[in-house]
């Protein structure tokens, strides 16, 4: 298994190089730094000097790939590609437009993001699976039909509605929790409870329906008939046989997002004023802070690949037949 993991990690390297090249092409080749400077400075203040100054402040005043002005290894290292893109492999993200270290900012903002994303994920998973099991238990009855109809309705509602509606009812009408904001420590509870609840509610429709499909597929298999023939109760069949066997398809969709929880949710965090990575990204997008967006793209893909590897590992945990080699 160790050998497998090492191979998977090595396999991740070319993919990350690809991501890196793609973002590099997107940010520096499609538009030259001059274009970016012109856009950020606005129409009025565009002078050649201003553009040069803007580029120099951000270190964009170098050649893209090969710097022929200097000698030795500097030929390759004193370029935009080396300093802005390749440096990300050692998680050196450089500085944002307001002069702060992006790496330090990310470390600081992970906590609040996780405080929302982790409970949403865990409680959500339990709720969705239970709801789906309930529908499976009452399959092909009016109750199941109503459940499916409810799911389709819930998944047809925009995620924005859950957030805006939830904020309005719970915070503004009932005054149960503050509308937005965040505090560290024990005080954080009243700030995070509503985003968590809304996050869970927003996913009920699509997730529960998806799990129900998985369970229904399992329940048509022969081993379930055998279990029933043994005289096991339907509940026992569902919880010990079907649930366990449905673990593989469930894990496929679930484990991969665990590392991405660090990134937080763009929408929730910006609506609730949570100082996490999601709101960091959205602020960067609105301020057109290219270096932050680039850093988040790279971080996101690293976490996604970690998620893929974790998924494979999780298979060995739930299914003894799976051996990684």
């Amino acid at each position, binding site marked *: 298994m160790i050998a497998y993991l090492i191979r998977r990690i090595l396999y991740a390297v*070319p*993919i990350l190089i*690809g*991501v890196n090249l*793609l*973002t590099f092409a*997107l*940010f520096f080749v*499609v*538009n030259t730094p001059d*274009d*970016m400077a*012109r*856009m950020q400075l606005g129409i009025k203040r565009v002078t050649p000097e201003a553009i040069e100054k803007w580029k120099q402040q951000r270190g964009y005043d170098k050649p893209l790939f090969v710097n022929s002005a200097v000698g030795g290894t500097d030929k390759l290292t004193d370029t935009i590609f080396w300093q802005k893109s390749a440096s990300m492999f050692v998680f050196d993200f450089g500085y944002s437009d307001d002069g702060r270290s992006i790496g330090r900012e990310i470390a600081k903002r992970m906590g609040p993001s996780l405080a929302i994303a982790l409970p949403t994920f865990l409680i959500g998973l339990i709720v969705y699976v239970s709801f789906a099991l309930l529908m499976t238990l009452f*399959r*092909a009855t009016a109750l199941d039909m109503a459940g499916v109809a409810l799911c*389709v*309705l819930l*998944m*047809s*509602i*925009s*995620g*924005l*509605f859950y957030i*805006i509606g939830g904020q*309005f009812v719970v915070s*503004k009408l009932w005054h149960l929790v503050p509308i937005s904001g965040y505090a560290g420590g024990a005080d954080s509870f009243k700030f995070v409870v509503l985003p968590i609840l809304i996050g869970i509610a927003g996913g009920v429709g699509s997730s529960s329906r998806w799990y129900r499909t998985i369970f*229904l*597929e399992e*329940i*048509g298999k022969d081993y379930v008939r055998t279990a029933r023939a043994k005289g096991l109760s339907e509940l026992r069949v569902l919880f010990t046989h079907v649930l366990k066997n449905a673990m593989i398809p469930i894990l496929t969709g679930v484990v991969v997002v665990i590392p*991405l929880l660090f*990134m937080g949710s*763009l*929408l929730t965090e*910006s609506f609730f004023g949570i100082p996490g990575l999601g709101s960091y*990204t*959205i602020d960067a*997008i*609105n301020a*057109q802070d*290219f270096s932050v*967006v*680039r850093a*988040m*793209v790279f971080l*996101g*893909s690293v976490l*996604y*690949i970690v998620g*893929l590897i974790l998924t494979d590992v999780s298979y060995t945990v739930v299914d003894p037949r799976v051996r990684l080699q």
Partner: protein
Amino acid sequence: MLDSRLRGNDEGGCLMSFMPVVLWSDALVFLLLAAGIAAAWYVRRREHLLLPWQRVAHNSVAMASLLVLSLFLAVGLLDTLHFRMALPQANGGEKVYSSEVLSVFDKLVGPLRTHTEKTYSEPFALTLYAKESMTDAQGNVARDYPRLQYGGAHLSDASQRVEDIWKRALAGGGLGLLVGLLSFYLTHRKLHCASGCDRAVSIATLILTTLIGAIANLAAVYHVLGTDKVGQDVLYLSLKSIRTGLIIGTVTTLVTLPLALFLGVAAGYFRGWVDDVIQYVYTVLSSIPSVLLIAAAVLMMQVTIDTHPQWFDTAASRADLRLVFLCLILGMTSWTGLCRLLRGETLKLREMEYIQAAQSFGVSSLRILTRHIMPNVMHIILIALVMDFSALVLAEAVLSYVGVGVDPSMISFGTMINAARLEMGREPMVWWALAAAFGFMLVLVLAANLFADAVRDAFDPRLNRTESKA
């Protein structure tokens, strides 16, 4: 801009002359429409392809949703026929066209577009939302709610309002119902629909015609869904948003469909290094969280558009090109899923006996791919197409909120929600624009979801089996 500068007939006077404008997105929509009609014509003549569609046709929920969808589609299509009016003053014989791009839909709902008030007003309101200082005939200044310029302007007394609304709603609704019944009577004499399929559909038709009749009659003199900050009718904005939503939902999948189909099938069929390369490409693309990739790409697109203002002759063509780019970017992030599905299916298909038979007969790879493999993966494409639609419509709203969606000047559900969201804090609350945007989106997405489910059930052989067992 794809701009066929045809001159309208000049002799009809200034009012009649116009210049048709074909924006990029319009061209794509026409292309899609043509492709759709061609596909329908092709399927019609082939029994085995028609069969699953007949299964869809027997699903009453699906047909009712299709009815709703086609209504949305009609609005969207009318809104796609664009033109520019000629300005009344002839500039030394040279015709000058207004820089404002209008659509046939704008002309049809004329008063809705032109009846703009000063600022917010509630649905069916006679007065503005905020008090203003007014000077009456005697010169006294009083603070009161001013009457709307258009909304309910025909009423002399505010107390007649409720009665008038009911009267107009009933008259319009009644007329709509009558039209519905009449069209029913005419079609039923011709078509002999199987007993089960038409009850839900007919009820849905009648409800829809009644509703449309009532709303159309009311919208002529009231702002049925209120007005927004700059006094535009919210009903008009909602209807205009439909086109944006439809384009995002359909064009996105279709522009990248050839790519996904070609690469997915090639990877599955040729395997070896072709497979490795294609897998590498889609793993790289799909490993970037999609919102971030979209955000990065849109940011860069904005830079390109901002630094090349000479590409666009009107604000509409600029907003439109941004919409098309957005579709492309969304498609770039979503084709990987479809590509992976197609690759998997092709891997399975290439081991089938009929493919091996074709190979041993010496049929060329290209011919095997086009004749034997592609027709057998079409159901996957169709299912992906209809399933993605609703997700994309919902995504548009979220992206516009994040600031990487459509151009802020383009009317869409996302921009409507974004504008209305800022007014939540007002007292009393301005709720109608939000409610309208969410309501229209819910109806569109719900209908699309229900229809997509029916299509999937009819086309997915695997699902059919498990459903019947359960």
